[in-house]
């Protein structure tokens, strides 16, 4: 057997470099949020979020070393066990967890708070990868579609029960894995269409929309007057679409909670109530917009101090970058994230084992959803959903879970040549 190069030479240094840059920028940014000119504060002070975050960062380095030391086969072999443990934790947190900010999703141990749903993403990624790689799953079969989707839907359902819609939404990112593994396009198109119709319903009066659909269906029927089967399908589709349109009101007013309804309203028309439900989005956009091309400078922000935009250092952390570093800073940040995600996809594609590839796509999907939803909401392109921006938002659970996600992939990638010799 060929002598292996050391692990040091096999890891993907580009990904690790991007990781380090993001973590350091994130840390400086957390300091910028709490910085108050009136007080002389030290970035290392443990009274500040920046000091506390430094502890979490140190912890994540320990995690990285642990992942690198572990046998790469561990993740494959223990995927289901890890998944099972996390599912148990998700159930437990519903029973004995602590409710913080309306979400029953925390375990509190003295000063330390842990959010099992953050780790559920990792566990689900492992389990899905394991399931697809060890069974002959064919996603064009209805039975397999149902079976495999359960791996995602069970944790998703539990997290919805916790009241954490934002994190639950991230589990939809697994659609990317399924899509890559052969889920028929029909599902993706249907899903996207439903979302499009839903958004249109919010923007356009239901009556007009219904009339529009009927007109469209009539035109299609007239054009296709020869084929009876197509006419049937068209009419059926039109009825379903109209059903969806009519149900939007019900979904909004009866399924969604009031604050979720407001977030939708804020997305559609933030200027309607800028001091009420439009507050976050309005303030967030003002902060980002006031940054201009090159920003006001590090620690010089005026709009993102004192936690005026709620969740300033967690969910709305991107505002501080927009304000203090302007469009140039935003560009650098988005560019770094794109490099990160494209590189993850690249790594996933070069894997020899199905397990590693599928896992890689799951990681890419999770990062993509966090990136898309988080920044999207701060600039008013997505409804406000409480999920963190990877490596930037203050908080240990999310930093650790993203670190684990990323470095398990790096570890698997480093061992990709060994798979065949197993």
């Amino acid at each position, binding site marked *: 057997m060929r002598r292996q190069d050391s692990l040091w030479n096999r890891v993907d240094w580009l990904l690790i470099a991007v990781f380090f840059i993001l973590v350091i920028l994130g840390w400086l940014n957390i300091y910028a949020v709490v910085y108050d000119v009136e007080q002389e504060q030290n970035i290392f002070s443990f009274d500040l979020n920046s000091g506390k975050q430094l502890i979490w960062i140190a912890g994540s380095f320990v995690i990285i070393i642990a992942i690198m030391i572990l046998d790469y086969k561990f993740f494959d072999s223990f995927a289901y066990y890890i998944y099972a443990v996390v599912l148990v934790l998700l159930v437990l947190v519903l029973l004995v967890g602590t409710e913080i900010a309306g979400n029953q999703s925390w375990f509190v141990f003295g000063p330390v708070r842990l959010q099992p749903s953050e780790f559920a993403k990792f566990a689900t990624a492992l389990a899905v990868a394991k399931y697809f790689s060890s069974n002959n799953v064919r996603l064009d079969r209805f039975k397999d579609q149902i079976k495999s989707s359960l791996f995602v839907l069970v944790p998703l359902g539990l997290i919805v029960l916790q009241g954490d819609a934002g994190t639950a939404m991230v589990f939809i990112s697994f659609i990317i894995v399924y899509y890559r593994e*052969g889920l028929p396009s029909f599902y993706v198109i249907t899903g996207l269409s439903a979302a499009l119709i839903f958004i249109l319903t919010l923007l356009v009066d239901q009556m007009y929309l219904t009339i529009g659909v009927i007109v469209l269906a009539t035109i299609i029927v007239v054009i296709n007057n020869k084929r009876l089967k197509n006419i049937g399908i068209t009419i059926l589709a039109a009825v379903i679409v109209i059903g969806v349109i009519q149900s939007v009101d019900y979904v909004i007013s009866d399924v969604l909670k009031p604050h979720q309804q407001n977030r939708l309203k804020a997305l559609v028309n933030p200027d309607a109530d800028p001091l009420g439900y439009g507050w976050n989005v309005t303030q967030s956009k003002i902060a980002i917009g006031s940054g201009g091309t090159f920003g006001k400078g590090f620690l010089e922000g005026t709009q993102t101090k004192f936690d005026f935009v709620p969740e300033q250092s967690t969910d709305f952390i991107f505002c501080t970058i927009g304000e203090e570093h302007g469009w140039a800073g935003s560009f650098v940040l*988005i560019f770094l994230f794109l490099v990160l995600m494209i590189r993850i996809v690249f790594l996933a594609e070069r894997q020899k084992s199905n397990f590693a590839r599928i896992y890689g796509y799951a990681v890419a999907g999770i990062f993509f959803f966090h990136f898309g939803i988080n920044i999207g909401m701060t600039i008013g*392109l997505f409804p406000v959903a409480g999920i963190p921006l990877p490596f930037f938002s203050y908080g240990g659970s999310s930093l650790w879970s993203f670190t684990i996600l990323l470095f398990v992939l790096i570890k698997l990638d480093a061992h990709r040549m060994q798979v065949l010799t197993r």
Partner: protein
Amino acid sequence: MIENRKYIIQILIIVVGVIFLVKLFSIQVMESRYKLAAENNVINKVVQYPYRGLILDRNNKIIVHNTPVYDIMVVPKEVEVQDTTAFCKLLDITEEEFNTKIQKAKEYSYIKQSLFYPQLSNEEFAKIQSRLVEYKGFYPVARTVRKYPEPILANGLGYIGEVSKRQLERDTTNYYKQGDFIGISGIEAAYEEELRGKRGVKYKLVNVRGIEKGSFNDGKFDTLSVPGNNLVSTIDLDLQKYAEYLMDDKVGSIVAIEPSTGEILAFVNSPSYDPNQLAGRNYSKNFSELNKDTLKPLFNRPIMAQYRPGSVFKLVQSLIGLQEGVIAPSTRIVCNRGIINCHGSHTNEDLHGAIKYSCNPYFYQTFKRIIQQGKVEGMNKDARVGLTTWNNYLSDFGFGRKLGIDIPNESSGMVPGPTYYDRYYQKDHWNFFTIYSLSIGEGELLTTPLQVANFASILANRGYYIRPHLVKGIDTPDSYYKLEFDRQETGIDSVHFTTVVDAMGEIVDGTARIARVKDIQIAGKTGTVQNKDSFDHSAFMAFAPKENPQIAISVYVENAGWGGGVAAAITGLLIEKYIKGEVASNRAWVENYVMTKAYLNNL
């Protein structure tokens, strides 16, 4: 087909990134409305200074309250003054002053607010308010200063002043900021933490021109300032006022205590000053004038002045002698005037007579018996044991140490002990004959007026005292709570007080006749403090009524002659005023006597 999906996914990622960049470009670079909104949304942090707690007298009459003033603050970084001359005219300062003030502010901090011009009154501020907004970098901050309806109790109340650099550095709690006020002496300093309250913060939306656009987010992030707690002092405002009036044009002090509680009813320093002098903008000017005054109005005599106790100490010797068993009420001692002189025409008195006639040889003998009890072999060694015993009693009486009154700068007085004499005469090279002048309250002994008043309290209580204090309770918005002060036993059995107190009662009928008040039995003792080169200090100590005492008092008037004179007269008037509420008209001549003597000429 499916292999193509990896490209679709990557394209999707990139497309989302590009959408974000385009949207960001539009809100950050293209549109100016967000920049305008941000400028119109400057959030100003305005400190809300709390009201300092009031100080009330024992009957809830106001002694100290607050009045509004405006400080002009400056942020050097933001200063833009086109026409300095006009600006200086506005505040009535010279350009030179303007430059030094700006320089001083810059030295403190470029970006933090510091005080530019202090304490404009309401009227002054109203005149310049509209013009002030034209000058960038200057902000008015409303705050309050102390106001005293009656110009009394200055030394007991103390004063507040701007917090010093050193205090700022030492303040580990980060409560204070430059320009804040802090209690510097007296009650203001001692009860600083109760009085100061808690600063609040108001976040205000202000547009670029500094015009307020309302509170930020409905004041959700504002914190209200919490006013300081009110103090209920032990002072009787009317008695204090009258006492200060009587001390007019005299140097000295008065301390009056309610014996059963240790509450100080009157606390007079003379000469004093109007506390309003140290509360306004002219604080530093007035302070330096007061500081230079040769009559030392800032010297807090009731607790800082130290006098030889004189005859008052004969009462102390009596009590210690009785408790130690070296004399009994019936003990007679011949008044031989060999070593120590005496006055009056008595020859061989018992204890009662000795106190009444203030017989020096009697207490010389008593003290000798206390010091030389023969418990140890050798006269010098025996004296050490005796003096140690005597010292312990004195300490229990509160002499030679701080009593622990609740305001700072108390003097401890002086009671020499064995180590003191060891230093002067070498170890065990002294005995009673070296230190006998202590027997009649002379020698190295020093006591403060407070200690003497407290001793009067002990006599009134027949054996104990409550630690004297100026504040008895704290009035918070929710509740009132009484402060607890410890009770100190003297170790003298209460039966021993009978003879002493009885004799004190007769003094008022004898040497201190001027202190007599109809229907009130006063027990008192004169204490003339002899001075070598000038007039004696007049001192008198008393409590009344003899049974169920309500007031214990010590009066010192410097260079005013013997104790039975003006000090006794003042004591009588104050007792009458406190117990009866007013001085009877047929005693107006006493007040007249007190008020017309020009003792300052004796200095």
